[in-house]
């Protein structure tokens, strides 16, 4: 029996169209745009001005607080504009625009492809380097990695979990990365283990990636303390709480930090970025992005310089399909629909998914038939139909009692609803109202 989490979950059609596509280098973009709030936490502070010359890896914006991240230039060239521009979702945010000129890298970056498995830095130096290099969680949450590696004093981490589940349909960037750079990932994992002072690490991979499981298991014998765990394919296994439950059989208490179980979870892409930062002194300037969907002519897993316009990457993948109707950053379950193709690719972008007219729209809504599907698939053990109804009727106090704030927004409820009801939309409204109530209660 393969391990998996214990409550709820669904198994949507996997549609991993690009599973067999090796990582392809995308051409260097002519221009990049770097939004200053592409991570969770305080926006970064711009430290360059218009007209400055930058190289690949030059720091252009400094972390704006402890929970924040540095931003580096992914290209060499000249800063042409610092202004508010619309991001992928149409929201105006402070952005640094750099016009590319050649491809000159900072000398401090080791560009050799040689594997370096000697971890020379101390624990503190590792965390410092990770912070300097602007590493954030690459699974999509973009939480600054150095913050996650320094948990509050009262918690002692006992185990590291690497999230390589890639439970979202369509996405294959982590899969491609594991097949391309297994040893780098394992060394990155050893570095993270050293950073948090643990001797045990698990790499959780869903069983629909058997080749990656076999490859990493083979290479892992050289690296003590790392165990590869095959997991039953089930969404949302990549949720931090679900993954800890699946691997350690422990449930994070409501409202507690995941580290209270002793586990620190990092994405597999983050482990790779940590390897590059610590062993090669390379800041986070590129990542793998899966470009996929209905009618895409050259779908694949592209290594992309961050800040490349979304439209340019779509061109590389064969251009916009004629019938495209919706474009999503991330996976189909939790990704966000894009309105602006000129906007840049941010650090947290794991995929670009294009859906045609038929798949882009929701079906007609009919009345709730109280079938209980949403209750049985909810991975947090909530009652989505009830939370949606309470939110719809503005009964927020009641919704709070029914634990609406525990909702992950994974979308299993809305996915499974035979009546096509917008359950999660209502829950989101209720959740933000309840959070506001909780905040104002704390203030008074």
């Amino acid at each position, binding site marked *: 029996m393969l391990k998996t989490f214990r*409550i709820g979950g*669904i198994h*949507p*059609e996997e549609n991993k169209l690009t599973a067999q596509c090796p990582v392809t280098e995308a051409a260097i973009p002519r221009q990049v745009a770097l939004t200053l709030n592409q991570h969770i936490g305080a926006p970064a502070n711009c430290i360059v001005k218009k007209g400055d010359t930058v190289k690949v890896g030059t720091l252009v914006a400094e972390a704006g607080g402890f929970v924040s991240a540095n931003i580096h230039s992914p290209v060499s060239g000249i800063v042409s504009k610092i202004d508010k521009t619309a991001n992928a*979702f149409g929201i105006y945010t402070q952005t640094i625009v750099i016009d590319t000129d050649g491809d000159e890298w900072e000398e401090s970056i080791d560009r050799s492809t040689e594997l370096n498995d000697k971890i020379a830095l101390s624990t503190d130096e590792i965390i410092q380097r990770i912070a300097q290099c602007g590493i954030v969680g690459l699974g999509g949450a973009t939480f600054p990695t150095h913050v996650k590696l320094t948990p509050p004093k009262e918690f002692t981490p006992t185990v590291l979990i690497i999230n390589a589940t890639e439970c979202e*349909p369509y996405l294959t960037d982590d899969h491609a990365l594991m097949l391309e750079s297994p040893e780098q990932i394992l060394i990155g994992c050893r570095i993270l283990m050293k950073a948090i002072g643990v001797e045990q690490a698990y790499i959780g991979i869903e069983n629909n990636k058997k080749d990656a499981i076999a490859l990493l298991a083979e290479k892992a014998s050289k690296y003590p303390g790392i165990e590869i765990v095959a997991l039953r394919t089930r969404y949302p296994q990549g949720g931090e709480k679900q993954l800890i439950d699946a691997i350690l059989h422990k*449930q*994070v*208490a*409501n409202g*507690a930090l995941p580290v209270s179980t002793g586990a620190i979870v990092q994405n597999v892409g983050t482990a790779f970025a940590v390897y590059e930062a610590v062993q090669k002194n390379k800041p986070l300037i590129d990542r793998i992005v899966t470009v996929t969907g209905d009618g895409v002519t050259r779908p694949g897993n592209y290594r992309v310089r961050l800040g490349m316009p979304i439209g340019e990457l779509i061109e590389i993948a064969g251009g*916009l399909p004629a019938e*495209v*109707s*919706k*474009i*999503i950053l991330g996976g*189909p*379950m*939790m*990704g966000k*629909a*894009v309105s602006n*193709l000129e906007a840049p690719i941010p650090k947290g972008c794991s995929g670009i*998914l294009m859906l045609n007219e038929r*798949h*882009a*729209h*929701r*079906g007609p809504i*009919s*009345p*709730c*038939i*109280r*079938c*209980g*599907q949403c*209750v*049985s698939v909810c*991975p*947090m*053990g*909530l*009652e989505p139909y*009830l939370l949606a109804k309470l939110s719809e009727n503005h009964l927020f106090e009641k919704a709070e009692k029914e*634990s609406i704030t*525990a909702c992950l*927004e994974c*979308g299993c409820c*809305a*996915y*499974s*609803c*035979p*009546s*096509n009801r917008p359950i*999660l*939309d209502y829950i*989101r409204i209720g959740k933000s109202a309840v959070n506001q109530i909780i905040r104002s209660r704390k203030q008074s």
Partner: protein
Amino acid sequence: MELTVSPAPHIHGKRTVSQCMYNVVLALLPAFAVSLYFFGIGALIVTLSSILSCVIIEYLIQKYLLKEKPTIGDGSAILTGFLLGLNLPSNLPIWIVVVGAIAAIGIAKMSFGGLGNNLFNPALVGRVFLLISFPTYMTQWPLPGTSRWNYTDAETGATLLSKLKEEGYQWIDQVSMTDLWIGNQGGSLGEVGAIALLLGFAFLLYRRIISWHIPVSVLATVFLFSFALNLGGGESLQDSHIWQSAFDFALIQLLSGGLLLGAIYMATDYVTSPMTSKGMVIYGIGIGILTVVIRQWGGYPEGVSFAILIMNAFTPLINNYIKPKRFGRK
């Protein structure tokens, strides 16, 4: 180019409301075939007129009374009509079937606000309405296998359960279990064939339209409760015959009357049953206990319909107090 923007999730499972309904209709076809075999033309006339009148009544109410877009295509009225038909004797005159359909769709479903809002199972309300209003028509059951081409003038007799109730249990040994399994017994037209009904149950489980919780807890409760009752009434527990007869008695309770039809197809109605698996088990046990209590001590020989309707009334209460196991809580 226009891009569609909407919040996640951007994909949807394949299941739809009408698919759920039609799957239940499919699951009922074996039982319907059994009733056609044993009751002949009457079964066909009663079932078809029930389905047609339910659909037409829903259409008329939605179109002319509520002035909204009719949704008869969702299959729920067809299913209600089918279930109502299966719950009636095969010699029932059409006009009484129509009255039942009006009670089911008009009173139990549409006056509560239509699909999803009704408190009680519409088909059962229809059946119970007829049982109370037309007791003579609703307690004369055509004999199986005789005169398949006779409709309202079919030869009738009592059901096994009413015989048990009136004449006592002396002749339990003479009951043919095979007849109960295949459906060679008197009763409402869809309830007789145990194997066919269980076949449909397996299909519904396989298609994941329903879960095991409600049917299994109803059937297990009825079986164990009846078994214990019969055992308690016996003389000496040392006698192996006592155990055997208690087992036979409990099995007869399981296979006769409307229990299988009710437990598998009526009690599991989404709208009127609890949302959580724990709640479903409580609800099922409640139906089981009430069924046995009515059969043993009540005024009617059969109590499944009443038991389900009574537990329907408890469903909101169960939903209110029985919560799923929340993640990360003891």
